[in-house]
């Protein structure tokens, strides 16, 4: 051994060289892989949006179903139509909602609303698609970061998500969303689906998330519904 590996000088030089090498290595890896990772994340969002509309993402492309992506303000007015900005807003949905920026995806067959809420252990999120009447649920996609597997995490299963299509979110003029009912949904109630057995807290979280998030978009929905009514009336008059 040429050096005294326990001398202070050696140790300091060794640590400095080690840290520099590791920093360079990690920086190169992070920068090199970043485009692929971002593409993966973007694709996943697009896939979920297509899924929420009830289409199969394997055969239906995002661009063919979504005609535009917008950001709304609290009054329902469009503030941005820049796709990049919309997806950037999705990355921090909680912050966007708090800042009064509400991303929305408009399809020919309806709209897709991003959801964000709290489960039992951590955040839950997803997308809910409404039909052109802004009332009937076309589909839902739910995801979570740490709900209990087999219990709360069951919200991600197709079996659970298949219960939502056909439910309605408006009760009169108010948005009640869809409630996950403990003990089983009342079949005659259009606003209820079965809760997850053993996942009551997560189910309550989903219920609150759907109603909270949809209410952010209420001005937009109301305007769209009013326009649809006027159009329907004018059509009757014309006939």
């Amino acid at each position, binding site marked *: 051994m040429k050096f005294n*590996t326990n001398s202070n000088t050696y140790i300091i030089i060794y640590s400095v060289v080690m840290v520099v090498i590791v920093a360079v290595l990690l920086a190169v890896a992070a920068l090199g892989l970043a485009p692929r*990772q971002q593409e*993966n994340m973007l694709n996943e969002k697009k896939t979920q949006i297509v899924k929420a509309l009830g289409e199969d993402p394997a055969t239906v492309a995002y661009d063919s179903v979504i005609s535009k992506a917008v950001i709304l303000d609290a009054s329902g007015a469009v503030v941005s139509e820049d796709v990049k900005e919309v997806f950037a807003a999705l990355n921090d949905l909680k912050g966007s909602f708090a800042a009064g920026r509400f991303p929305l995806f408009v399809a020919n067959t309806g709209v897709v609303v991003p959801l964000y809420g709290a489960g039992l252990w951590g955040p839950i999120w997803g997308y809910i698609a409404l039909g052109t009447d802004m009332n009937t649920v076309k589909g839902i996609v739910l995801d979570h970061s740490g709900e209990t597997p087999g219990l709360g995490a069951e919200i991600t299963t197709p079996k659970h998500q298949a219960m939502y299509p056909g439910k309605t979110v408006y009760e009169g003029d108010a948005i009640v969303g869809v409630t996950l009912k403990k003990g089983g949904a009342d079949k005659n109630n259009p606003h209820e689906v079965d809760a997850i057995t053993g996942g009551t807290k997560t189910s309550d979280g989903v219920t609150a998330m759907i109603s909270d998030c949809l209410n952010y978009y209420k001005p937009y929905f109301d305007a769209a519904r009013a326009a649809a009514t006027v159009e329907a009336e004018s059509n009757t008059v014309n006939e």
Partner: protein
Amino acid sequence: MASKSLKNLTAPLSGNNPVIVQILGICSALAVTVQLKPAIVMGLSVMVVTAFSNLVMSLLRNGVPSRIRIIVQLVVIATLVILVDQVLKAFVYDVSKQLSVYVGLIITNCIVMGRVEAFALQNKPWDSFLDGIGNGLGYASILVIIAFFRELFGSGTLFGFRVIPESLYLAEGGFYSNCGLMLFPPMALIIVGCIIWAHRSFNKDLQEK
């Protein structure tokens, strides 16, 4: 020499298994074994990290100042874990999402640093590499066994496919229901205990007097 190298690879699979003989890495064995798929990916990730951290530390072993060797080990292991995490995120995004924080927690897996400290610092790179692969495989095999029982009895599925028919369930008029306890970490500990029991009754030399 060849057979001695090979022994580094095979010993950790049973006789010197990191989980059930050395009782290391129990924490993550509880966390990621609810389903088979994440358990397998986690096992493979740990194997990659143990193998390469052993290799790197064995190459560095003559130059590492012994006073800061633990810090050096930690830096090497953490670097490898971050690389694995980044690669998973870039190439198998859905799996990395499923493992979420547990990939990062490989850093804290006692097996990795245990093998570096106990083996790689005293042995040649090739032997150390094989030792890392062997310990990773030994860890992965136990994870797979635990995950098999937990997923089968906890969810009635294997790899996400239904094994126990829906028609047998109480909800569908049958008599069967899933064992909810299987989904919780304590059950993994009980299964580890059962595996150790079975393993020791076959390997009498491991039994304490």
